[in-house]
C-alpha cells in the first residue's frame, strides 16, 4: 500500500534543498533503492523544482506529493500555470545537447511524465524499487 507524503515549498531557490532532502529521506525508508539511485532522485527533484521556480513568481508555491510504495516511489511536483511545461520539454524526442537538465532527468529516473491543464502543470517522476527480501516491502524501521 502506498504511503503518501506531501510537502509544499515556496517557489524560491533556498527551498529547493529542502525538497530534495525530504524526498531523499523518504526514498530510503523502504528497501529497494540503492544509495546511488537515491542520489539520482535527489538530482532529478532538484532539477524539476529549479525548472518550475524559474518560470514562476516568487510568491508561488510548489507542491510535492510522494507516493511511496513497495514497488516504486513516485514523486509528483505540481506548479501553478503552464510555464513549467514550456521550461520542461520532456516529450521532445531529441533534446538540445546543451540542455543538461533534460539529459539528467531522462537518464536518472525510470519514468517521467508531464501532465498539464490551464491551471497547473505536474511532473511525475518514478523510481522502481528492486524486489525486497521482506514480504511486505516495509523497511527496517521500528514499529
Amino acid at each position, binding site marked *: 500500500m502506498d504511503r503518501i507524503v506531501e510537502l509544499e515549498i515556496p517557489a524560491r*531557490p*533556498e527551498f*529547493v*534543498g529542502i525538497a*530534495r532532502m525530504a524526498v531523499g529521506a523518504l526514498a530510503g525508508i523502504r528497501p529497494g533503492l540503492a544509495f*546511488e539511485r537515491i*542520489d539520482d532522485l*535527489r*538530482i532529478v527533484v*532538484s*532539477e524539476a523544482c*529549479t525548472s518550475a*521556480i*524559474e518560470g514562476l513568481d516568487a510568491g508561488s508555491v510548489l507542491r510535492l506529493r510522494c507516493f511511496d510504495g513497495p514497488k516504486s516511489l513516485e514523486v509528483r511536483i505540481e506548479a501553478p500555470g503552464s510555464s513549467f511545461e514550456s521550461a520542461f520539454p520532456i516529450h521532445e524526442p531529441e533534446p538540445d*545537447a546543451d540542455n*543538461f*537538465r533534460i*539529459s*539528467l532527468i531522462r*537518464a*536518472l529516473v525510470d519514468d517521467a511524465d508531464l501532465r498539464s491543464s490551464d491551471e497547473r502543470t505536474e511532473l511525475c517522476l518514478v523510481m522502481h524499487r528492486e524486489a525486497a527480501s521482506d514480504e511486505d516491502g516495509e523497511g527496517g524501521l521500528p514499529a
Partner: protein
Amino acid sequence: MSVKGTHVDLGLDVKERNGWTVLSVQGEVDVYTAPQFREQLIQLVDQGQRSILVDLEGVEFLDSTGLGVLVGGLKRVRSSDGDLALVCTQRRILKVLEITGLTKVFTIYDSVDAAISGDGQG
C-alpha cells in the same frame, strides 16, 4: 589568497599552487548557491587568472545549475586564452558529468597534485 563563502551550504576557497589558481568548492551547488560560485569564477577571470583548477572533491551535491556555472567559467577563461580544469574522483559527480557529455569538455584530474604535475588526467 583565501575567500570564504557566506552561504551555509557552500564553501569556496581560493589558493595559488604552482601557477594554478585552485578554487576548492565544498557543500551543495544548486540554484541557491550557484550564483556565489559563478561570481567567484568571474572574479578570478577578471583578476587575470588564466589557469583555473576547480576542486570538486568537497562537493556533496551538484546539479545542472552547477554544471552551467562550470561551462560558463570555461567559456569565459578560454576567451582570455586560459583554461579551466576540474579535480574530481567522486562517482556521483563524475556520473553527472558523464551523462551531460562534459567529461569530454573538461580536463579532469584525480587530485590537485596530479594537475600540478600534469599526471592522472581522467
